């Protein structure tokens, strides 16, 4: 009985999962760099600031999810075709919202993040000014 359990355990440990994801080779430029190092650097910089849609805490440069590979290929092909990185970012944001970009942007919902520190600094300066700046 124990032996049977051991066998079962061994089988479970060594068998490959029945349903992997897809079995297609990755998209043409998912794991291949562009031959022009300047263009590749441009693409890398952009890919590092685009969010993977599947593993949502990784950039597409970091992720091995198939859709991230497809996105890298899309980005590299567009960069190779001479498209501006920020145009590509806009194109993706039109479809997925701010969500897809890691680059901080000031918008209707994010402006307090930028405004609050400024207000706090001004407040602190005002307090320090009142206490120290004008000794009576």
């Amino acid at each position, binding site marked *: 009985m124990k032996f049977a359990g051991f066998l079962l355990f061994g089988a479970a440990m060594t068998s490959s999962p029945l349903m992997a994801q897809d079995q297609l080779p990755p998209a*043409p430029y998912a794991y291949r760099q562009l031959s022009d190092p300047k263009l590749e650097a441009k693409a890398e910089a952009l890919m590092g600031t685009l969010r993977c*849609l599947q593993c949502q805490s990784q950039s597409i440069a970091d992720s091995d999810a198939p859709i991230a590979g497809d996105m890298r290929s899309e980005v590299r092909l567009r960069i190779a075709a001479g498209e501006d990185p920020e145009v590509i970012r806009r194109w993706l944001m039109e479809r997925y*919202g701010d969500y897809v970009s890691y680059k901080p942007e000031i918008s209707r919902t994010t402006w307090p993040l930028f405004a609050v520190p400024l207000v706090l600094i001004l407040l602190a300066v005002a307090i320090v000014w009142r206490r120290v700046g004008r000794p009576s």
Partner: protein
Amino acid sequence: MTRWRLWIPLLLFAGFIGLAAYLLPQPKDDFVHSRMIGKAMPFFQLPQALPDKPTVTSAIFADGKPRLLNIFASWCVPCAAEAPQLQQLRQAGATIVGVDIRDRSEDLTRFLAQNGDPYQAIGADDVSRVQFLLGSSGVPETFVIDGHGVITYQHIGDIRADDVPMLLAKLREAGA
């Protein structure tokens, strides 16, 4: 210095605790919703997924007939789970076209033989291109497209039994 001012920091702190206590237990929405709802279907062309099945291009959506566009793949387990619901939709008169993501035709043939074939047409998308065009981030997803080729609704994840009447209603809204 009036006495009430002493309470301001405590009130601010209490306000912060209150805000955190209210927001932290809110359910988290991990779905990435498409921004393409209400917009026209972007141009695309796909090769046929199967030799005996017409393919899907953006041109077919402008013929006045609303459709469901189902993003699926044979390797996707929830896609097999939603197959009966797609059959139900098909029987209720919905026209369903499929975009098959990163798939091989022999796997697709086996998948359709096992789970049924509700599709009027299937296009093969090996690089997730149509997903990017539609703002779709996973498999399966189902879009409602009206007769003018405008995207009117996105359903993320597999279609459950209780989603069927909802999707039929969305199709009716789109002019079916």
